[in-house]
């Protein structure tokens, strides 16, 4: 769900993920929310990120919106989007190599003064 905002980086999203530790959290399943998010999300970024975090169940190509009728698909989407958490590691801007550390599940996106 993160993008990089370093000045001058136009295609800052998606960030590369460096995994040290992933945790899974149980979140209430909400199909309406998922259907709403589906149209807005960068699918490939989500699929890639999930894979790096050890969950390879999502299709790599953007699925047709008809998959939203499948409960099985929604469950997978739900898990990848809401239940996988990068607990320790980093988000890395692919263009500048700038690393944003993630500690205890909290990414630190603050830029140094010379980057603002």
């Amino acid at each position, binding site marked *: 769900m993160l993008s990089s905002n370093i000045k001058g980086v136009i295609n800052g999203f998606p960030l590369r993920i460096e995994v040290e530790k992933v945790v899974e959290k149980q*979140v209430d399943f909400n199909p309406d929310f998922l259907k709403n998010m589906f149209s807005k999300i960068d699918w490939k970024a989500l699929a890639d990120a999930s894979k790096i975090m050890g969950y390879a169940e999502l299709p790599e190509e953007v699925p047709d919106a008809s998959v939203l009728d499948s409960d099985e698909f929604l469950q997978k989407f739900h898990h990848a989007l809401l239940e996988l958490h990068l607990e320790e590691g980093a988000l890395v801007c692919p263009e500048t190599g700038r690393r944003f550390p993630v500690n205890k599940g909290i990414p*630190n996106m603050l830029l140094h003064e010379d980057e603002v």
Partner: protein
Amino acid sequence: MISSVLSRFSTKMPSRIAQIRLTSSHPQVYEPCDDSFALVDALLADRKHLLHHRPSLCIEIGSGSGYVITSLALILQDLKTTHYFATDINPHALKVTHETLQAHGVHAELLTTNIAAGLDRRLAGMVDVMVVNPPYVPTPEAEVGGDGIAAAWAGGENGRSVIDKILPIADKLLSEKGWLYMLFLAANDPLQICLGMREKGFASKIVVQRSTEEESLHVIKFWREFDGNEGGSLGKMGSPKGWEFLVSQFSRFSFRK
């Protein structure tokens, strides 16, 4: 014996806002204060509208102790379908926010960042409720920002430095039906803020007005105005009549000295 009676009582009547005794703290993090309470009171006052609104995504900018975002999550707990985000520029604040959320059994995605940098592109047009108790105290410009406790209140000239950066980001993040609840000090000139927001298509109204010994606080709710969209609230504030109403609200509370 008494404690068992009390605990039975409390499970029957779940508290709808965060409890101070469960709110975590840290010497470098702003503790809940009159302004925090005014903002939560505004959310409570609007509780029915908020439940009816059924927000999917809520975000707090500058969550500090987590008292406000935790309260919002508890107020909306019955919905079960809402996701929460909270940001702060102070890394300690998010640790404390995390502890406060956890102590109340609710969850939010946390991010150390300047306002919403890193989120604003992903969440553009998706946020249904945004709450902000910004650093609003007029101070020298040099005191604004930083990752310590001063960032909690230092607002620069007229206390507007950070406020004026947050408002365009709110416009970007808020969905068509999105609502913003934001706290201001009289010195921030909230009437002028409302007029500026009106140019961007936002109607507004005062939800809570409160004077403490030191401060005159206002919580203002903003929503995008379309025909027939009344923000679940009183009248229409964007129409000529509504605009007079807005001004009269402010003069009633004598904003300007």
